[in-house]
């Protein structure tokens, strides 16, 4: 007689926990694994270690910045890929609306209103705004603030723009 009752209360408990967990991960913060070497010096510094296993970095993604969509140059963000909505990419913002980008191939590109220019730290193998163009800010779904795993690399992620040789940013005069 007690088994259905027990199962029911267990299911209710899990459902509640899931609901609250989903809300927290949507609105405040969540964890995720970073794959690939496009952000290499900052995240996933060595994609393969001596044993041949690949260890991904786990990072803390903060979602509070989505309330106002206020970002600054140098923030590492997670955004949905413009060419495939199921994929999420991790890149660094180097320019905000109104900035001008100097590229070797094209003259200068002005970042349009509501968009940003993202670049991977490992410029050699990174699919970023140089091929995709400016990214709408609405596609961004979080900002990476901390590395939480592996243990020797726990700490804050620095939000400085690394010196990328191929990108020259001139900020908007306000």
């Amino acid at each position, binding site marked *: 007689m007690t088994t259905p009752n027990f199962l029911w209360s267990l299911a209710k408990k899990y459902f509640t926990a899931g*609901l609250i967990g*989903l*809300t927290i991960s949507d609105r405040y913060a969540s964890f995720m694994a970073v794959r690939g070497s496009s952000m290499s010096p900052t995240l996933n510094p060595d994609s393969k270690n001596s044993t041949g296993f690949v260890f991904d970095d786990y990072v803390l993604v903060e979602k509070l910045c989505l309330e106002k969509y206020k970002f600054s140059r140098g923030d590492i963000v997670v955004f949905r890929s413009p060419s495939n909505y199921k994929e999420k990419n991790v890149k660094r913002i180097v320019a905000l609306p109104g900035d001008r980008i100097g590229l070797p191939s094209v003259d200068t590109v002005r970042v349009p*209103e509501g*968009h940003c220019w993202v670049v991977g730290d490992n410029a050699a193998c990174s699919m970023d705004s140089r091929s995709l163009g400016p990214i*709408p800010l*609405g596609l961004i779904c979080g900002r990476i603030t901390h590395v939480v795993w592996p243990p020797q690399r726990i700490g804050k992620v620095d939000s400085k723009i690394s010196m990328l040789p191929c990108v020259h940013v001139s900020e908007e005069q306000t």
Partner: protein
Amino acid sequence: MKVLQYVRQWKSAAKEVVGHSILLAQFLSLLHVTDTYIFSSTLVYGPSMLPTLNFTGDVLLVEKLSPFLGKVGPGDVVLVRSPENPRKTITKRIMGVEGDTVTFLVDPGHSDRSHSLVVRMWMMVPKGHVWIQGDNIYASRDSRHLGPIPYGLILGKVFFRVWPPQDFGPLGQWD
């Protein structure tokens, strides 16, 4: 003795507070999950969807599951996060999905009157993008100005109109 009694009293009060706050958190979470994953209501106004939606303001029910499952196709009225300002949302109709070729008039208001020439263009919608257009092509800022929109910006599919009362009912693909 007095201390023990005090502790017991405090314990029951704390238990009550925790119980109430869990109930509140549960309620708010349910609200949030329903709002982001199942459906929500929204108020839209403006001239861009004029024959279908009113100028003064309509309250619509927006269903969030179909864009999540990839079941949004041509003809659907969708709620989209504006690419120009991420804090704003716009309501438009999907005219084409990835791989489709869309034809459109660049500036119908001008080309009809002052010039005899009608500028008609065609374009192939790139991968992972959609082409959105307002029903009122004379007063709508949409893919003709902004280009194809990434699918990830679609927030939901409009399926029901609640307000004004004379238009209460489901909102079909093409009216």
